[in-house]
């Protein structure tokens, strides 16, 4: 008996040690590259051209950030990103909650048809070109609203909210109805405050999506004034890539300047997400679970 326990103990200890070592390696593989970007962005152009550092900058400098902040178009892009994320999230969550509330009532006329339509939108879409033609004919090309209006609705989010609203006790609604409240009033004054956790989850996912979205701009926007940070960054990347290829062995100075700006822009673009991350983390696991549970 004792021998089995001892054997199991040893086996477990070896297992745990190997497990922890492997997970440490995994963590390092994720953290070191990210850290490298941050310290590279804080290096002078000269140090960047020479390279030779991984963990710590050779020549600390804020010149890249100065260059980025001096570029007015990047400041504008930052504002566009914030505006589209903020407005987009609020309208999206309200719109989906409104429809989800309506559909959560089993007695409404035409419910089966509405649900069927919603399910179709989950599996079929017209794809890139027909959607582009639609956006074009709606006059949304080169309009700020192209960030907001097509992103208003997602049937996945509607289903999540609908299920959440169903779990609110009926008696609350009934007593409000007896007091003479209409559906809108009940929705706005009772259900919305009660559903804050679910709505926050959807808001956070949608917010990350809006902040990171770049295809919308790439497809529908040509006006530079409406470029969000992601598109601005994409332009800088493409620009530096072409330059790097044209200057193979040529003037390295241009390359390193754009590289520095590129790195600083990457850090600035990611910063809001990293700052929001601790708040995000509270919600996204429950969000994943809610998303996995379908009607």
């Amino acid at each position, binding site marked *: 008996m004792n021998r089995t326990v001892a054997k199991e103990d040893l086996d477990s200890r070896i297992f745990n040690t190997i497990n922890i070592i492997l997970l440490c390696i995994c963590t390092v593989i994720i953290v070191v590259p990210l850290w490298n*970007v941050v310290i590279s962005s804080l290096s002078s152009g000269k140090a960047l051209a020479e390279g030779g550092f991984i963990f710590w900058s050779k020549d600390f400098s804020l010149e890249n950030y100065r260059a980025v902040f001096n570029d007015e178009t990047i400041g504008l892009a930052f504002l566009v990103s914030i505006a589209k994320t903020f407005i987009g999230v609020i309208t999206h969550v309200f719109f989906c909650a409104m429809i989800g509330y309506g559909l959560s009532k089993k007695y409404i006329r035409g419910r089966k048809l509405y649900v069927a339509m919603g399910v179709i939108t989950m599996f079929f879409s017209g794809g890139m070109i027909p959607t582009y033609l639609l956006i074009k004919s709606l006059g949304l090309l080169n309009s700020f609203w192209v960030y907001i209006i097509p992103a208003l609705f997602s049937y996945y989010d509607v289903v999540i909210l609908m299920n959440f609203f169903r779990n609110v006790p009926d008696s609350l609604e009934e007593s409000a109805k007896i007091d003479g409240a209409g559906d809108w009033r009940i929705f706005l004054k009772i259900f919305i405050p009660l559903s804050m956790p679910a709505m926050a989850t959807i808001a956070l996912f949608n917010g990350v999506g809006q902040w990171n979205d770049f295809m919308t701009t790439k497809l529908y926007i040509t006006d530079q004034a409406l470029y969000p940070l992601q598109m601005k960054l994409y332009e800088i990347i493409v620009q530096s890539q072409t330059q*790097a290829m044209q200057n193979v062995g040529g003037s390295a100075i241009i390359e390193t300047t754009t*590289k520095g700006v590129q790195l600083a822009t990457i850090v600035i673009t990611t910063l809001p997400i990293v700052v929001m991350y601790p708040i995000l983390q509270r919600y996204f696991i429950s969000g994943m679970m809610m998303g996995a549970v379908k009607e």
Partner: protein
Amino acid sequence: MDKLAVVPVNGKNPMNSKKPMGQRFKEFVIDYKRQWEIQSMIIPGIIFMIIFCFIPIYGLTIAFKSYTVIDTLDSAPWVGLDNFRIILSDKYFWDAVVNTLGISFLKLAIGFVIPIILSVMIYELSGGRFKKIVQTISYLPHFLSWIVLGGMLIAWFSSSGMFNEILLNLGIISKPVNILLDANKYWWIATLSDIWKEAGWGTILYLAIMSKIDPTYYEAAKIDGASRMRQIWNITLPNMKPIISLNLILTVSGLLGSNLDQTLVLMNSQNRVKAEVINSYVYRMGMTQGDFSYATAVGLGVSIVSVILLISANKVSNKLNDNQSVL
């Protein structure tokens, strides 16, 4: 109340088929009017779905037309399957198909297994702070956009970047190389960067399922003298089988739709031959070359194949899971 939800089958309502059509319509109108306030919440959603989903589905008809910029959707002349015929003899399309399948296959072969292993490893940690730290860090890359990650990759792989520095120090290479300009390595870059970004995120669902496994199973196994590996093999993995097969079905159905953002940011003139995927080909043909009908036809073909893949993957998994459908 239930009566209200009954939907007509073949124009006849099975619940009250005796009532004439006109009367049922009248009842519907009366109910609808009484529910107008709650219905007013749904109407915007219905209008949205019709405009932004159903009109583009109707717009797929241009795949069977010859659409030019001067046309409207309806004025363009029908050409039947001509666009599809051209696709079949288009060398660039088939290159894109090969790349899409190659990258997707690598992602499936490696990227599907790693989150499972990783989640088992995290699950086996006894808890505490280290577990939290590992989880927090592994989820983080998921929240970076492909544009940001693409920019990072370009910086890491540049001739003075981190990647070359490590290889030089380890003595693997003697001269810096930029592997982003090496077409033959692109599939691996696309695969591994995708895994780096999403592997940690992929563990969340698995970990949630594992936390529901009855701990007495493990206790019983321990008494029987089962090693830790044996416990994982005989308890943890069998318990995750349904969710793994569900994930596999969803992955298989997405085989042809590999990441457009990733390709757009990592593709350059040097690696294009190996980097072009179907989605980026649709983008290039449609948006930059203006061949809308052709691009739509490619997109439609891909969607149809994807649906077929989804259905067959589901069938196969039903067989494997003793006819218990996971979808």
